[in-house]
């Protein structure tokens, strides 16, 4: 393969496109790919202010699952998981996609009840789900401490065997390359600073640090910075941007061959192929755009992790970092048109959008290309006015 097909080609922005996508993270890139692939819309430009996929896409803990409670969530996340299952073939790239199983632990009676309910709801929606007793948990993952005399005893867990992990950077690069090969321009190091407004306030493109780019449709896919961009057109959203931290340990022999998540103690962990333990925390409570969080959040998470996995006592911390996650009040995303003609929105994936990278782009592209998407419809901004929220806060175990 020559360089041109191995990676995306660098592009200078043209004066105008059919569709301009603001944000070159996972969701912006998958949107561009599916616009080109599924709908033949190739006159597309992705504008990214930094380097490609250096935002949350580069910072997440790569957990993939579809075992959400509500029908609307099961539909879009399961569609996404099915796309994941064919993605390496479709994009012709090794994504280190590994369906090693995701366990969500239950620590008290409330957890047990909502977990069992979720297992049943998942099955009704055709999503694979199992309930494990604490003995089953230990059989599936021997290093979990199931002793009853700890602060957060393990009373059982849900298991989605089709869940797992993938290599986030490779996913972004593969979407970018495939989109680029279909004719999409990917413009890095170009920040959107304003929107071009036409008759009646219609959005007709963007002003960038590399000049004006006109477009019939402008799609905002900027994750943590969505509110900042929306404010440029006077749009106020139900989003708050928070730091979300994660960390890796030094490299160890393989000791953990599945993904373990715990809602109550805000720990989720897997082991990378290279050997690092990859762990994520809960969000920092305050709003923040600094891509860093407070250390006590990490300490809190480590205390819980050590109790769950006593063997981690020997592990040393290598590195911590943070992303900026855009959180909605119901912990579900916003995918849909806006009150402003010409402007579409795909945001609010918060702490859990990596798994949705294929499904989000697939549905958003369908919406932009055809004007309607069955999968995206429940996620319109309108739900905050009608009250039809999709409350996945507690419902879906951890939101990652």
């Amino acid at each position, binding site marked *: 393969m020559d360089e041109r097909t191995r990676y995306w080609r660098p592009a200078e922005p043209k004066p105008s496109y059919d569709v301009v996508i603001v944000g070159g993270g996972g969701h912006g890139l998958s949107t561009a790919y599916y616009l080109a692939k599924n709908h033949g819309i190739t006159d597309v430009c992705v504008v990214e202010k930094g380097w490609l996929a250096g935002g949350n896409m580069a910072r997440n803990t790569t957990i993939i699952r579809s075992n959400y409670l509500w029908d609307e969530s099961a539909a879009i996340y399961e569609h996404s998981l099915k796309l994941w299952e064919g993605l390496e073939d479709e994009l012709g790239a090794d994504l280190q996609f590994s369906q090693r199983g995701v366990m969500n632990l239950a620590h008290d009676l409330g957890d047990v009840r909502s977990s069992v309910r979720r297992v049943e709801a998942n099955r009704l929606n055709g999503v694979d789900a199992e309930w494990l007793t604490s003995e089953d948990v230990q059989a599936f993952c021997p290093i979990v401490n199931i002793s009853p005399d700890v602060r957060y005893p393990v009373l059982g867990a849900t298991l989605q065997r089709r869940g797992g992990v993938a290599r986030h950077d490779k996913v972004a690069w593969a979407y970018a390359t495939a989109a680029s090969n279909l004719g999409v321009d990917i413009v890095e190091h170009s920040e959107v600073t304003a929107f071009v407004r036409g008759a009646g306030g219609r959005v007709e493109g963007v002003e960038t640090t590399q000049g004006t780019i006109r477009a019939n449709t402008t799609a905002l896919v900027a994750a943590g910075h969505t509110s900042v961009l929306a404010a440029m057109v006077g749009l*106020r959203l139900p989003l708050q941007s928070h730091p979300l931290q994660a960390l890796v340990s030094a490299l160890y022999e393989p000791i953990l061959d599945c993904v373990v998540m715990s809602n109550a103690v805000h720990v989720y962990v897997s082991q990378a192929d290279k050997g690092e333990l990859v762990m994520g925390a809960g969000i920092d*409570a*305050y709003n923040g755009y600094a891509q860093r969080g*407070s*250390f006590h959040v990490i300490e809190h998470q480590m205390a819980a992790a050590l109790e769950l996995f006593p063997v981690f006592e020997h592990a040393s911390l290598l590195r911590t970092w943070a992303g900026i996650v855009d959180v909605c*009040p119901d912990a579900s995303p916003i995918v849909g048109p806006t009150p402003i003609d010409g402007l579409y929105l795909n945001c609010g994936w918060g702490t859990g959008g990596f798994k949705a990278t294929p499904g989000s782009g697939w549905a958003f592209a369908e919406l932009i290309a055809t004007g309607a998407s069955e999968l995206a419809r429940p996620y319109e901004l309108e739900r905050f006015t009608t009250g039809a929220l999709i409350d996945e806060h507690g419902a879906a175990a951890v939101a990652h």
Partner: protein
Amino acid sequence: MLLIRCPWCGPRDEIEFRYGGQAGLTYPPDPEAVSDEEWADYLFMRDNPKGPFRERWFHAAGCRRWFNAVRDTATHRFISTYRLDEEPPA
């Protein structure tokens, strides 16, 4: 960890505090009179600036009083903290 100046207790570690989100949101005086859009605006829509943000904090493990802050969300640096009956310092 943030060092937060409670207007009553002085500077304390962040772990003593709870966050309360955007300050200055007012409950609609006549809730039954507002439209669905206005109600959604009150309940769910929030400012989310990258820069100075007026927000509420609660000194949970201290004097247990609420107070306001202006904090720069781009750097996380506190610009000021002040009591609920005070205006933000200029």
